């Protein structure tokens, strides 16, 4: 038996493969946070006065808040004065084509297998490449523009579409929502803005790749997606980050606003640096993601594959306000070595006949801790609301942990809420069975894990699903044999 444990241990102690650093000159703020830093960021981004005021208001609220401690994660206290809140690649003149993008930067994307040119040419995915807080290049803007779709960096949106930003910024995640959302609101560096006009079906997957790239840099992204009546958009977010010794803080906010009969699919593959196999370094990922199904028959769907970060604190949620609106959450969260993840969702049923589905698949290996935390709330006005939740945990070895914290609050007797949960272990029997057919242990684990996560992986757009499968195998890969 002990030799099997050894296999699992070898297997789960692989090194992070994306550990490299691109040498791009930075233009950074000094460490720490105060009103001057907030002003510095706003000035750097040449923002209008109203935007600065909004940030300052958020900052003033943030300093009154306490860091939350309820999550099932443990880390040394974060020194918020020891973080750089703004870092941008050195300003270049306006770029007319990808050829003008910093070659080092393009090289970085290539190492990750994310070639903008490839993506542009082959897959028709419009990519808004965000590296260290500033959008480098937004592609396909013109094609989308013809349909009236706006897809641009957040800074550009603040300049070009102030009326939309003023209307929707903070409408789903108010600046006062929680500690990290308030911090983000004060110092957010950049992000993406997406607007789909009434009746328009976005013809391509919209995509953003995030990447932390400067030592000690905080990354505070802000994404806002607005889908008008009867529109549709599928949005992809993916990221990998280079190796780092000190912990980095990432506190993003994503807001989705869906009007009547609008549908938004938001898919994430998250692969921030998880720390080394001894638990040193890694990204702290404290994210607030929320969608508002404002209109009747609207639908918001979150799909996430979480493999990275030392600590993940993330609950993509849906507020089902419109009658007959639908919220979905499909998640695979993998933790290895000393990673900790506390993730899940909130489905808040306010409208009548609203429906939500939660499928959560946790995979824990090494000495990691993986928690599912989810809330299903049926408001008293929400007649005939329905929820189905399924939370599965898969354990590899016997030094990791899986936890499930489901909260269900029902104030309407017509509600139908189902909750299923399972915990299983990758069996030595399963691995041996694969071995006996000629499949080595590494491939066997990849096969078993991908099979386990299939329900969720199937929800991802095709090209993303392939990438996610590889990532799952890679995350759990080790030096077997």
């Amino acid at each position, binding site marked *: *038996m002990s*030799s*099997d444990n050894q296999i699992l241990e070898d297997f789960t102690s692989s090194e992070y493969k994306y550990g490299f650093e691109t040498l791009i000159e930075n233009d950074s703020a000094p460490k720490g946070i105060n009103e001057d830093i907030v002003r510095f960021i706003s000035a750097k981004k040449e923002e209008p006065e109203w935007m600065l005021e909004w940030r300052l208001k958020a900052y003033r609220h943030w300093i009154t808040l306490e860091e939350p401690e309820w999550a099932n994660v443990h880390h040394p206290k974060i020194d918020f004065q020891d973080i750089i809140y703004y870092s941008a690649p050195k300003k270049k003149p306006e770029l007319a084509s990808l050829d003008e993008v910093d070659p080092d930067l393009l090289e970085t994307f290539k190492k990750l297998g994310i070639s903008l040119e490839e993506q542009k040419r082959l897959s028709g995915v419009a990519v808004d490449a965000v590296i260290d807080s500033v959008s480098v290049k937004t592609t396909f803007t013109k094609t989308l523009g013809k349909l009236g779709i706006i897809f641009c960096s957040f800074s550009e949106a603040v300049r070009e579409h102030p009326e939309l930003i003023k209307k929707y910024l903070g409408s789903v995640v108010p600046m006062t929502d929680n500690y990290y959302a308030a911090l983000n609101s004060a110092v957010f560096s950049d992000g993406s803005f997406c607007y789909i006009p009434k009746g328009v079906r976005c013809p391509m997957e919209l995509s953003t790749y995030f990447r932390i790239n400067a030592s000690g840099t905080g990354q505070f992204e802000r994404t806002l997606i607005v889908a008008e009546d009867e529109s549709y958009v599928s949005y992809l977010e993916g990221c990998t980050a280079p190796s780092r010794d000190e912990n980095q803080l990432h506190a993003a906010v994503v807001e989705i606003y869906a009007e009547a009969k609008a549908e938004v699919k938001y898919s994430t593959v998250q692969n921030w640096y998880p720390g080394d196999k001894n638990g040193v370094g890694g990204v702290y990922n404290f994210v607030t993601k929320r969608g508002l199904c404002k209109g009747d028959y609207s639908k918001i769907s979150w799909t996430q594959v979480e493999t990275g970060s030392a600590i993940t604190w993330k609950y993509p949620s849906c507020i089902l306000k419109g009658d007959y609106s639908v919220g979905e959450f499909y998640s695979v969260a993998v933790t290895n070595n000393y990673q900790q993840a506390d993730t899940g969702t909130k489905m808040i049923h306010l409208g009548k006949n609203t429906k939500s589905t939660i499928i959560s698949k946790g995979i824990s290996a090494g000495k990691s801790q993986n928690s599912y935390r989810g809330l299903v709330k049926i408001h008293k006005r929400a007649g005939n609301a329905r929820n189905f939740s399924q939370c599965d945990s898969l354990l590899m070895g016997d030094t990791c942990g899986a936890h499930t914290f489901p909260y269900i609050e029902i104030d309407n007797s017509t509600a139908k809420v189902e909750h299923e949960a399972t915990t299983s272990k990758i*069996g*030595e*029997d*399963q691995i*041996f*069975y*694969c*071995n*006996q*057919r*000629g*499949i*080595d*242990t590494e*491939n066997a684990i990849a*096969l*078993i894990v*991908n*099979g*386990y*996560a*299939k*329900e969720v992986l199937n929800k991802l757009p095709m090209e993303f699903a392939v990438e996610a499968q590889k990532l799952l195998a890679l995350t759990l890969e080790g030096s077997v*044999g």
Partner: protein
Amino acid sequence: MLSIKNLHAEIEGQQILKGINLEVKAGEVHAIMGPNGSGKSTLASVLAGREEYEVTEGEVTFLGKDILDLAPEDRAHEGLFLAFQYPVEIPGVSSNNFLRTALNQTREYKGLEPLDAVNFLKLMKEKMALVEIDQKLINRSLNEGFSGGEKKRNEIFQMAVLEPKLSILDETDSGLDIDALRIVANGVNKLKSPDNATILVTHYQRLLDHIVPDFVHVLYNGQIVKSGDKSLALELEDKGYDWIKEEVDATIS
């Protein structure tokens, strides 16, 4: 093809195999019978390379190679196949995906190019017809929710696809009704050739009505205590195992 010499093996300090000797040549079918707890399944597991078992003495050569130092997957690559007594369920993984991974890793081991999707599906179709297995079963998650009979048929199907040199069928007849038994046996018979060999590990004679063995060995207390032809199996069916036990115990005392 397979040569087992003085094989001793134990699990968690308990000795199960106590000096097995067996020679299997290409084209032969051997049946290994014996009462419960005699070490039949242990022998199958040790040959396949299950880690819990420790070989303490003896040697096993397969096609001229010492296989005891080979990893289980490499034994499989060399052409050794074990049909499991209790086939394992792997949720979310289709037989297609599973077998393609297995087949292509074996081809890689042999220095062959992986089989492309078209040729793989062609191979699957051909083998499905051969062992009379339903496409629906192949499309489902591997063994998940399969009946006992379906699991065993799926084992034989995998055997057909992987085309091993030596197949060890561990209690493949257990839990099968008479129709399923016939179908499974038909599959095994069809796959028989002068180039491959089969070891049937079984408790009962009835499988041997359908798959006729060239040799029958009785395993008792970790050793092969009696060998003969198919008539030995019939004798066992008739008289049970007690007379063999008595014979052996008498010799010892």
